[in-house]
């Protein structure tokens, strides 16, 4: 083993990356294509325009060892419409989930659990209710797991948004 191999052995970690890109034709396919062509993972991807600018922010959650993460950041930077790539170290992350349940459930139980995850009932119809919760990704996963006992009819997650502290 030689001098550079310690780098290969670093552990796989989860990394939140935000990418500021020009709002233009094809830009999302460039980003997604890069990940698929080079065999990198995308665990979550969200995109929204940045107010009063020609740019959008993409928040990507990926996993890989140090070398892979370094390459992802550099490869993203190399794309022509990418203005900036931030490899977040210390972030607030939020994930939102929407869940639909039959109205026949115990609604007060659902409400109490949702509140525990910073959530609430958003909509009620004759036959169903929709609950939303916004919290860290890990807690949202936990919330979804807990709510399984109410037999959700539909589950929709937003993906992650993040901001450096």
């Amino acid at each position, binding site marked *: 083993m030689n001098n550079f191999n310690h*780098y290969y052995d670093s552990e796989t970690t989860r990394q939140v990356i935000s990418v500021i890109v020009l709002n233009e034709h094809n830009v999302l396919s460039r980003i997604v294509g890069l990940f698929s062509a080079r065999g990198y993972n995308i665990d979550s991807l969200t995109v929204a325009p940045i107010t009063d600018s020609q740019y959008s922010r993409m928040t990507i959650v990926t996993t890989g060892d140090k070398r892979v993460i370094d390459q992802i950041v550099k490869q993203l930077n190399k794309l022509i419409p990418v203005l900036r790539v931030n490899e977040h170290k210390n972030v607030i992350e939020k994930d939102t989930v929407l869940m639909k349940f039959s109205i026949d459930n115990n609604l007060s139980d659902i409400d109490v659990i949702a509140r525990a995850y910073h959530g609430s009932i958003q909509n009620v119809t004759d036959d169903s209710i929709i609950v939303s919760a916004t919290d860290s990704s890990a807690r949202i996963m936990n919330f979804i797991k807990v709510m399984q006992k109410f037999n959700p009819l539909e589950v929709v997650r937003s993906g992650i948004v993040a901001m450096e502290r």
Partner: protein
Amino acid sequence: MRMTGAKMVVESLHQEGVEVVFGYPGGAIMNVYDEIYKQNYFQHILNRHEQASIIAAEGYARATGKVGVSIVTSGPGFTNAVTGLADAYMDSIPLVVISGQVPTTIIGSDGFQEIDAVGISRPCTKHNYLVNRIEDLPRIIKEAFHIASTGRPGPVHVDIPKDITAEMGDFIYPSEINLPTYKPTVNYNKKQLKRAMEAISNAKKPLLYVGGGAILSNCAFEIRELAKKLNIPAVETLMARGVMGDENPLFFGMLGMHGEFSANMAAHETDLLISLGARFDDRVTGRLDEFASKAKIIHVDIDPTSIAKLVVPDYPIVGDLKITVKAMIEAIESGENEFNDYTNWVELLRDYREKEPLRYIDSNEVIKPQWPIQRVGHLLGAKAVISTDVGQHQMWTAQFYPFSYPRQWITSGGLGTMGFGLPAAMGVARALKGTDKVSINFTGDGSILMNIQELMTCVEYELPVINIILNNNYLGMVRQWQTMFYENRLSQTDLSAQPNFKMLVEAFGGLGYRVTTKEEFDAALKDAVEKKRPAMIEVVVARHEEVLPMVPNGHALNEMTLIEGGK
């Protein structure tokens, strides 16, 4: 000035100083071709296949350092061009490729000759554009040339719908580029350079590992200076052949899978590998964890993604190679560092070279495939610019041709595209127009048939490419692997069924020769060079010759299969 989008294309190319365009017309690009008919700015060369158009533009770009330009139509015109784009992308060759597209009103409806061209070209171009508005057209072409030729160069594809080329608009060609998201790092980090110089001063066996970036950044002179200043030996990758000059006493050959013994041993034994515009390709490194395993590594590259992609260097430097190497020379001249005497190290490599020189066992019964390459080197030397196809002949040419300057060697390194040689040599011949240099294409009996239609283009435009087919009636490189690693099961590699090459080239209007002896070869070459016409010399060569030395896949560079005998 008001004009159509088609006229804007022609005017923009003129503004960029384009003197030749390789292309092929078709429905969606007809508006542009109508303007090409009316203009006198540049020559248009009509290839006989779009793949050859792109590769001819590459040959021109590789020989001149200018941006190569090609124009093709939508659908199949564009899909035929893809191999050329990928080839240019892998070898970082600056191209602007313009394709026609169905009208914007038809896009997405599976129209005639419609294909998602930018969707296809995205992973094999440095950047691409679909022009949606006439106002954007001049700016996009300006950006395309800028992006293709700066930073790490590469092909840029511009897809233009037919209604955009018909539409009228105001033509103002931008004089400046404003791309806030594209700013390649050309200036090295001073602190990093200082650390690298300290590493050199501590090294006992430093080695320059020179890659294709040295040619792209036009710094062969500086690299030779750097080597000479400190008496540091150098090896070249396939893409860098010609940078050091083969007569240079500090040059120890090409390294890699078919590298020279001295070059591979140098990489194995060095204690400081100084990578200049190389990217640690698997064909160079062999088994990665054994590559330069005794060495600290300095890696200079303009592309940050090349650094630490495969090998993590101790001293990474992002920057233009020419600027960085110049700074290294200045640092040496400043006298800030003291350097060791590398005489013993250079002597050791010289011993290796004497002990195991590149060689082959010549024959009087049959022409060995290496012989015509050496012979052309002897007869034409620096007067010839050498292109190749891909396979055994390519490796033999890299090994046995005496290259003496950069851009003398034109080959498809990264993608390894069979069919590259003839169109590339045509682009070279166009670049050499008006000089006394000769464009030679060393090719194989497999590769040559992949773009054989380009003989017609060469004849029509009087581009005197001399094709030398080393004919062993095999798909030789695959045959070699089958012999070595597949117990000689020669699956689909016997090319006994062949055209009469002499008659074939004559049918296109070129000069044909079939030679079986050395005397016939000399006579044919002399005739072809004198007549200055497209020619094809078929050399019947020994069938079972292997390319050696060889580092088998997955082995370290010092584990070479060597040439037996012949010393």
